[in-house]
């Protein structure tokens, strides 16, 4: 299958290992990967803060760029940015743009959902020694319905012991600009998550969004914890 990578600006600049890992895993399961260097940001920060004009301009740009590709799927190492593309339609009143947005959303997938539901693989041939737990990032979980896919992938990684957090589905408190508009609330939410992670006695917490991982990882290291924050693609990319 031919895949066009939607890298997301956050993975591009701050968590490139997730994007490199995604490319490696996609190739390993038999996909060919292309990357259009014109892509920048999907516009989610503007959309979520209320700046619809800016978000609309970026959405149009995104649609034009990815429409140009004849890849069968657009795949992203982020549930949140994938969900944003799925929201594009509501930014437009014009029927033509709405249709284009809907069509593009139809072939835009989050990495774990793409691997399990489109490619049909669970064992991607990875090896990773460690006790891990999964944090459900909100938009992947609730906007896209991704729950079992990352767990199925992680369980098939040789050497991984996967444990569940009692509050795996609770928000980590990131919420985009929420994390800096209301930092005390954001961190109070985060600390409940971190407490559970530490009680679970894991080597690393894994998630599908670099944004949550920045939030969780930033607090783990501030608290002097030995637990690491890893992207799903970081883990899946490891081979023996």
């Amino acid at each position: 299958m031919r895949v066009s990578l939607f890298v997301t600006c956050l993975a591009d600049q701050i968590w490139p290992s997730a994007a490199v890992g995604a490319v490696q895993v996609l190739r390993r399961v038999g996909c060919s990967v292309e990357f259009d260097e014109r892509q920048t940001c999907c516009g989610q920060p503007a959309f979520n803060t209320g700046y619809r004009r800016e978000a609309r301009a970026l959405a149009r740009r995104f649609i034009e760029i990815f429409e140009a590709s004849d890849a069968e799927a657009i795949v992203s190492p982020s549930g949140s940015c994938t969900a944003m593309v799925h929201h594009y339609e509501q930014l437009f009143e014009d029927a033509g743009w709405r249709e284009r947005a809907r069509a593009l959303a139809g072939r835009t997938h989050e990495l774990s959902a793409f691997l399990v539901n489109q490619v049909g693989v669970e064992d991607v041939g990875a090896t990773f020694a460690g006790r891990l737990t999964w944090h459900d990032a909100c938009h992947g979980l609730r906007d896209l319905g991704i729950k079992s896919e990352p767990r199925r992938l992680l369980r098939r990684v040789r050497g991984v012991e996967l444990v569940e957090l009692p509050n795996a589905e609770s928000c980590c408190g990131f919420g985009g600009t929420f994390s800096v508009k209301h930092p005390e609330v954001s961190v109070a939410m985060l600390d409940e998550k971190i407490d559970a992670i530490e009680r679970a006695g894991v080597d690393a917490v894994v998630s599908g969004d670099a944004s949550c991982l920045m939030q969780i990882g930033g607090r783990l290291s501030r608290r002097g914890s030995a637990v690491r924050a890893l992207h799903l693609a970081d883990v899946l990319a490891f081979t023996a």
Partner: protein
Amino acid sequence: MSFDRGVRAALSDVQLRGALRQATTLFGDRRQTALASVRDWEGARERARAIKDDTLLHLDHYLEQFTANAERAGARVHWARDAEEACEIIGRIAAERGARTVVKSKSMASEEIHLNAALARRGIEPIETDLGEYIIQLAGETPSHIVVPAIHKTRAQIAALFTEKLGIAPSDDAAALTAAARQALRRRFAEAEVGISGVNFAVAETGTILILENEGNARLTTSLPQTHIALMGIEKVIPRFADLEVFLQLLPRSGTGQVLTAYQSLLTGTKRRPEDEGPDELHIVLLDNGRSRMLAAPVTRQSLACIRCGACLNACPVYRQIGGHAYGAVYPGPIGAILTPQLIGIERAAHLPYASSLCGACRDVCPVKIDIPAVLLHLRAQVIEQRAGKGRWLERFLFRAYAAVMMRPWAYEWAMRGARALRIMPPLRAWTKWRDLRPLAPRSFREEWRTGLRGKGE
């Protein structure tokens, strides 16, 4: 109190946070258990929402039908455009009956119109008879939850309050505290000339109102005094009596995790014969107070589908940390964050749509499937478009700059390269005070792609 100050006060209150964690977890768990007894929960949600959507599309028709049928059964129906009119109507009725005290059962609509203060100005003493509301009234506070008004109080705090205000011997036995409240309230029921209640549902085809409760106080409020005044938002009307079936499955389970509340009072008009029980007069006040404005567009209209169960508060991770008072609004939590700006005007509540991480837990638990995050986003766009609330010149500038850069891949690439070369970190003290900020990676993905990754696949 500003939202930020409210948040800080809440977060530094250890007792409050303990009470909140315990209560929201308990209600969340109970709800989960209660759902299991409904065969098709999703189907019930869909049906309830469809009924609400249909009602809201033809609200004028159903309100007129309800009014005609309620009046035929002996009730008087009053239409109140806003809070002031509603207070005036209720205050006048109570005053004309020579009321010195009125007993009240739980009603968030009465909180919304600040009825107690309006009655007090007329020299009429309002007595809250719901235990939680009674606690709040004794403490001189406001409800911090729409279903569990005293959720923020621990048992020890309530014991201390009762000792001080009711003069009982110190005890933190729940049964003893409840008995003390009951004893104090019985006397007030007997002397009140007027009873004021809220309404959970109003059935258009029969003119019936339904009140759900667990303590029996609403039944006393609506039957002992000679005059009963029921206050309801105009969105409480439903078309048919049979529609109650689905709403009664959803509301108690979502609210308190009960299969059914202990009491359900169905009231249709006044007593038929003099020897019947019940009040001589029933007045029903239909409150608009900003609601009809929400009918205009589907995205805002869905706010009126709310049946006030409070499940979104219990599920909200923000509410769980800060409780209801920090929001600084009558309706707190996720539903309050969408209702308040629409009821009182976005200018006066521009901070509320931002009091959420947009996690969507509220949407998952909502029994009538209100897409609260979508309404929050809609209201955020309104805040920016109408320049409501505080000045956001820096934020506006930053988002313009961000868009200008992101529209041009070369600008994006060079901006990031520059930041990397000069090791520029954004001055985000709001982030770095509590969290380490992950630095830019030494090389971006696109650089990795160009220098080898691209070719490896071929």
